[in-house]
């Protein structure tokens, strides 16, 4: 009997759950499509409504980029627990040997792929619409984006779980999560703006440190807090 079963492993379970979520996302495409359309459309609108002679695009771009990442990301986060709640699939997952931490890690991993995919589409579009020259500084921007995405997704996934227990999950999630995004968005936007202005990476070290510390603290805290968002 025991040989027919494997011991549950946090990483294997998390990857399986993330893969399942991404497969659903790939099939339905509803979240990714709306998030990308939202991101690209917002980029175009922001760019079009600004007077390029008054504000330089390099000054405008970072703020625009991070506002768009935030709201596009929230669109994906909202879906992540919704698809578990519709037919109560979450109950089957919780009754199985999979640990609650693995459920959280899997959900967060799926959301991370989602958010990074939106970023990968939005960054070149930003460069194109805002006429920013492509150079090696974009690797730095990408690193900042990924570092910020980790903390963003950890906190966002936890609050998506909290919000999914309420009557108005879609409205509540931004309200709960946005104050927690402050230490992600402000350093990320500042670092992006320094990098795009051609400053070397060591000048944005304070921002990167805050992002890194936030990632470590909140990935740990949210993983520990997640089981408490489930009724028992």
């Amino acid at each position, binding site marked *: 009997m025991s040989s027919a079963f494997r011991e549950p492993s946090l990483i294997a379970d998390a990857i399986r759950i993330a893969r399942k979520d991404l497969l659903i996302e790939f099939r339905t495409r509803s979240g990714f499509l709306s998030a990308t359309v939202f991101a690209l459309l917002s980029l175009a609108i922001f760019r079009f409504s600004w007077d390029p002679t008054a504000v330089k695009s390099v000054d405008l771009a970072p703020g625009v980029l991070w506002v768009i990442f935030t709201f596009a990301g929230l669109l994906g986060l909202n879906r992540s627990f919704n698809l578990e709640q519709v037919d109560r699939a979450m109950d089957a997952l919780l009754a199985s040997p999979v640990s609650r931490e693995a459920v959280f890690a899997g959900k967060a991993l799926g959301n991370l792929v989602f958010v990074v995919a939106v970023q990968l589409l939005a960054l070149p579009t930003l460069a194109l619409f805002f006429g920013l020259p492509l150079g090696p500084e974009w690797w730095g921007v990408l690193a900042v984006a990924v570092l910020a995405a980790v903390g963003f997704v950890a906190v966002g996934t936890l609050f998506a779980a909290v919000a999914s227990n309420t009557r108005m999950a879609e409205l509540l999630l931004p309200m709960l999560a946005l104050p927690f995004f402050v230490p992600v968005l402000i*350093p990320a936007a500042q670092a992006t703006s320094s990098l795009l202005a051609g400053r070397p990476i060591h000048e944005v070290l304070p921002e990167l440190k805050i992002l890194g510390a936030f990632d470590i603290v909140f990935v740990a805290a949210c993983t520990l807090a997640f089981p408490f968002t489930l009724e028992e």
Partner: protein
Amino acid sequence: MMTTASTLEARPATARRLPPVDWLVLVALIAVGGVFVRAMLYTPADAMLGAVQRLFYVHVPSAILGMYVACTVLAIAGGLYLWIKDDRLDRVAESAAEVGFVFLTVVLVTGSIWGKASWGTYWAWEPRLTSALFLWFLLLSYMVLRDAIENREARARLSAVLGVLALLLVPFIHMTVYLFRGLHPEPIVLKPEAPSMPPEMLSTFGLAMVAFSLLFFALMRLRYQWATARDARADREQA
């Protein structure tokens, strides 16, 4: 409180009201009034800022209580609730959040008046004020979350999660806003060296701190009693 709740059990619903005046709130208000009188009449005004400096005796105690004390109580009560699941801890957290919200509102209002007088603008994106604003939003979202959940157990549990995480967030918000350079006067009371204030001002400030702490806990106590009465009534209606 638990004993009074059980003796009230037999009386009709109209008799189960809280007393019209809470004595501790009254004492606290008198203390705050006394501090105002002392600040206005017996403490010298600041040579540079003039009369508006007297806002300091409201602004700083409110900031300390609203930002640090309220958030700490919220997080500790939340953490303990998740551990031992006692409803009373949830009511403490709920009370701390609402009273903290009121104090932070006072901080923001007095901060802008101060800002107009000393910096010439009602709102400056100054680190401390920005921190207070973000915490104000945080407490607001805490209250909205509570409002959105009907089941008492779920409300207590989920808001406790938010409360605990909020305390972890506070240092990050401080770090983040300090990436900007600030206009705010450097801390003049809570700093390692001797406070840089004339002794009259310092003693008035000390009294203000005591009076506002008293008010903070008196309001929290009143809010807690109200929550206990509300929950007890809900229990009776359900049973």
